[in-house]
């Protein structure tokens, strides 16, 4: 198992953001967490990448306990994240942002690095066109592509994508999801957090539904997408 989350509890002050969450992310899969605003999806992501302190429970990566590891050590192990709201470095160029994604690597002059850069630019031709442009001048969709490309530059085993479709036009959303599929086919395991449940369930092998800090349903993506109560609660009844 690539990532195991076991009995995870995280608090913000006295408020319990997530309560006793357990799930696995199998190697090579696309796993998704869906749920409404405030359900604890982003908190779960931030805890996996080490930005939030754990009150109880454990996170294991390839069997290794990383519950209390620093964020930068987790990047070195192979976990990288495209955060909610993209969070591109707006004062830097596209290329500098991509270089930032590879901050933990020490092979900037190597062929492997150049190949990875080429691979990201092939996935996102728009980034190639704007390579020397300041990230802050780009549209939301382009910044989302940059955030995902930046996370890929770390050469992750597991990529965490937090709300990649947020605020994007339907056409762009379809494009982002097809790229997520492509990334997965190229061998990177994906953990995807989404409010767009319909698209996420379609893309995912495994899915977990979060409600007020707890996992209330788990199953195959296709199975949950066909479930009537899930349809009613998350898919607006018309998928």
């Amino acid at each position: 198992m690539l990532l195991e989350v076991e009995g995870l509890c995280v608090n913000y002050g006295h408020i319990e953001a997530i309560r006793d969450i357990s799930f696995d992310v199998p190697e090579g899969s696309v796993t998704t967490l869906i749920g409404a605003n405030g359900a604890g999806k982003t908190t779960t992501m931030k805890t996996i990448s080490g930005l939030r302190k754990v009150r109880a429970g454990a996170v294991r990566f390839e069997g290794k306990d990383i519950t209390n590891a620093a964020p930068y050590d987790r990047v070195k192990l192979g976990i990288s994240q495209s955060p909610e709201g993209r969070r591109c470095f707006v004062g830097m160029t596209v290329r500098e942002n991509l270089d930032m994604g590879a901050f933990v690597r020490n092979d900037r002059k190597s062929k492997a690095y150049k190949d990875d850069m080429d691979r990201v630019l092939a996935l996102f031709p728009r980034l190639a066109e704007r390579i020397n442009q300041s990230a802050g001048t780009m549209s939301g969709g382009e910044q989302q592509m940059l955030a995902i490309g930046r996370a890929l530059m770390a050469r992750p085993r597991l990529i965490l994508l937090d709300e990649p479709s947020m605020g994007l036009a339907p056409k762009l959303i379809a494009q982002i999801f097809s790229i997520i599929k492509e990334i997965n086919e190229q061998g990177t395991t994906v953990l995807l957090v989404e409010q767009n449940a319909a698209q996420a369930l379609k893309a995912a092998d495994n899915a977990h539904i979060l409600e007020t800090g707890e996992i209330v349903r788990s199953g195959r993506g296709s199975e949950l997408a066909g479930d009537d109560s899930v349809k009613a609660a998350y898919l607006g009844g018309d998928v």
Partner: protein
Amino acid sequence: MDFDFFFNNLPQLTITGLAFGAIYALIALGYTMVYGVLQLINFAHSEVFMYGTFATLWTVWALTGSGGASGMQLVGILLLALVMSMLTSALVALLLERVAYRPLIKRNAPRLIALISAIGASFVLAELMGLRDRVTGWFGLDDTLDRYVSGARINASMSGVVNMPNVDIFGIPVKTVDLLVIGAALLMMVVVDQFVRRSKLGRGIRATAQDQETAALMGVNPTRTIQMTFLIGGLMAGVAAFLYMLKIEVTKFDVGFLLGVKAFAAAVLGGIGNLRGALLGGLLLGVAENWGAALIGTEWRHVVAFVLLVVILLFRPTGLLGESLGKARA
């Protein structure tokens, strides 16, 4: 107002002002970088500078002996003094980060608490130097080190060691020391600017300044990045201290206070968090106060400097260049 004197000496007044301004700018780098990354005003940075002046002074004292030095020997001594000054200031800056800030940052203390810690550290460092005769006395070293510790609360001087001639530029007599100070300071500013813009560590610093959480997601170690900014600020304060001693030749345990306030003002004037702003603010402040001093009297120089600061901030509250370290043109 003494307009005749002012206009007759305008070139020299400007060059001397630029030399002061260059020193302010180098010290201002330390304030502005730490602010850019931590949103914290390192009020103890003035003491980082002050320790550098003493490192320069003592190195020169220890190596010139009674007969003085000249030629290549003197150049060697001065280069060593520069290195000692940079190392000492860097060490004090790193110590500050470790003792006065890191424990607070780790606990997520409010910035106000860190500010108080900074002011406290500043007093401790200054008074430690001002009471160095007593401190060495506890260890029975005050006799051995008499020359270095006696008169701990009065001026200590290295005047007469370095005598640089004036040169004529287009018929205007200019002090070589001023040219050296301006040139060296500009060179250091360019080095730091390029380092922050182009190197991987510099990119890490800019990323942390812009968004610490996302920088951590990229694998940037925030503690190391913060240490790095203190280190760079310390090294530059060391250069400033050396140049200050070349020009002024005299130092004292509380020399950092006014210089620190001026440099901080320069950083705010240029736009705090902005490296090029620090340079611009420093030079502007240096020239303005030197002109003001010539026009209305030397005793008004600090008044001129701070009136300028207030007036500019009234119209441009974010300073002249007003960008943060995270931005492209930092």
